[in-house]
């Protein structure tokens, strides 16, 4: 019977005598469980093994550099105001003469901190950034630690290393 777009009444039959003996039910259940013993195990032995993340996965943040290895962030603060968890703080500074190879814009972030305990990895900072500076990487997560202050990521851990500047193909323009 093909039902479409209609109410579908689900039937309930009274239990038969055989069913009321319960023992077959136990064996049936056990046999299904036993069959699963010999199937491929879905368990991942974390942390030795890690799961493949999807391409869009929103993981640990990175502050990107431009083609010439200069920091892209201009400390405009948009990511901080867009952040629903208020996880981002920064201090802006004026670029001095001779620092043009370090910072792309005249204003830059002297310090930039993300509190990973507050962060909910929603990606709104990335969406807000006008300079395409902050990104959530799809291959890294925040590793577990023991101390609270170890979760406050400063520029030392956020800015991408010089030699990797722009080399990452996992970063794409999400929005």
């Amino acid at each position, binding site marked *: 019977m093909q*039902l*479409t*777009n*209609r*109410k*579908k*009444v*689900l*039937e*309930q039959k009274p*239990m038969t005598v055989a*069913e*009321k*003996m*319960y023992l*077959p*039910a*136990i064996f*049936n*259940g056990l046999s*299904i*469980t036993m069959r*699963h013993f010999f199937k491929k195990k*879905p368990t991942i032995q974390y942390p030795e093994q890690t799961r493949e*993340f*999807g*391409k*869009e*996965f*929103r993981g640990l943040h990175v502050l990107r550099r431009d083609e010439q290895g200069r920091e892209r962030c201009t400390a*405009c603060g*948009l990511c901080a*105001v*867009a*952040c*629903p*968890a208020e996880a981002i703080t920064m201090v802006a500074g004026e670029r001095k003469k001779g620092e043009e190879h370090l910072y792309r814009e005249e204003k830059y972030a002297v310090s930039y901190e993300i509190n990973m305990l507050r962060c*909910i*990895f*929603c*990606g*709104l900072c990335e*969406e*807000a950034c*006008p300079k395409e500076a902050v990104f*959530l990487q*799809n291959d890294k997560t925040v590793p577990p630690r023991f101390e609270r202050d170890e979760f406050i990521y400063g520029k030392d851990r956020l800015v991408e290393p010089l030699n990797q500047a722009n080399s990452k193909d996992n970063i794409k*323009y*999400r*929005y």
Partner: protein
Amino acid sequence: MKSNRVILEQLQSRFSDATFTEQTTKDEIFTLWIPLDQVQKILRYLKYEIQSPFTFLYDLTAVDERTRNRSTNHVPHADFTLVYHLFSYTGNCFIRIKVGLFGEYPSAPSITSLWANANWYEREVFDLFGIKFEGHPHLARILMPRTWEGHPLRKEHPARATEMGPFRLWDEKEDREQEALLFRPEEWGLERQSEDSDFMFMNIGPQHPGTHGVLRIILQLDGEDIVDAVPEIGFHHRGAEKMGERQSWHTYIPYTDRVDYLGGVMNNLAYLLAVEKLAGIEVPERVKVIRVMMCEFFRIASHLVWYGTFAQDLGQLSPVFYMFSDREKVFQVVEAVCGGRMHPNWFRIGGLSQDLPKGWETLVQNFLDYFPKRLKEYDAMVLKNSLFKARTKGIGIFTLEEAIEWGVTGANLRACGSDWDFRKKRPYSGYEFFDFDIPTGQNGDCYDRALVRVEEMRQSLRIIEQCLKHMPEGSYKADHPLTTPPLKKHTMQDIETLITHFLNVSWGPVIPAGEAMSCIEATKGANSYYLISDGNTSPYRARIRTPSFPHMQMLPYITRGYTVADLLSILGAMDYVLADIDR
């Protein structure tokens, strides 16, 4: 459907001495202000006497109006407003009744004698606003701790911990808190003994695997039989509604993810439908279909969690593992599309955050090929198992009338024989274009609730398949000035668009003044966001109506007379999430 005019005329002819003030709202729900002294009479009339009566108290809440910007909105003046949302199943329409209250701590007549589910709603309003209800049988705090000072949803109450000074627990305070925690059965309306026996009191929870979250149920037992059960909720209360008043319209989206945390994007949808009504945004077809597809994936994920844990509650230990690994398969799709798993934060005002990724068709198709086989195996393992049947058939029965009286929605309602599904009856987001059946039960017991949900997963697969086959082309964002964030190609081109971007991100969009309510068929029942804007960058009031709240309220009523073991079947079959109850 009956027109609003007719309702108003009927009311006016019946209550000729009362003044009714109509208010226009963005969601076209008929909104009527009625005088305080006739609340009970008018509501009684609406429930029992009017043609196609409003038998269902959908929601009851309040609004603190004292700081509302009135220049933008023509509403009668009041300090507080009580808002009753009633629903008529026969007329398929909502009505919104508002009552203005005056004074700092006003009071209003209780309607607990009219609707059984008004009890908790009124307690909630009392707890969060300090509005008293005369004639309420047990007007005590429900979400906040008993020792809490102030009423959080009043505008003068701080919204952040940092505005309240550091937390200190000095000795005296500790004693006070301890004192408040002492268990006195009388305070919960429980007798210590009956004529011939002393009752035993037992706590299930707040930490108990059978409660699926932080929920405490105080059981009054006579031997193994439940004399009464009192759920204590509020442990999971995070003030989601209060946060709505301080977040911008845009940055509130991630908070909605966490209301029914098994429902993921379904929460985004309920919220955004209300925002889009307020803003007057019509989203493109493609957005609608993608939204429906992801919602159905989450329905399957949520039902799988329910299925596994339900079986586990009844003593079957293996299904939950298999089902969780299948849920992982759903999450693979979700993660590939949304970038997040349980909290995808993926829908946006006027669209989606991104378009579907390349290769999504294969992912979805793989899941469609894979999952039906598994459902079959689960049928053999769980639904056909006679032990499972013995523990669920005939347990926790309620009738359709009782269900409506207590405000039950979703699969629990459909297990009683009603085919009420908001996706079908009041289609939203393009559900009218999809072909699917509404599974219903007959007996309203735990087993039927299980049957209905399992069948719903199959129907969800059908919907997903149709999405896959007929995905329309087009943009993933609406072309509307309030779409947030706008398509990137429209922003940051020159200084003008850059400034727009700055304003858009820092303040967020300004949603025009008005009121709107959405109503969707979420994983657990009817979920609504009732949003009020006074033309600002954040909601003036964000009310979340969740299905689990009234379901949990019904627990004492359906457990009396059963045994403790049955209680776990009833809890398991109810399918609630504590975050959904407490918000």
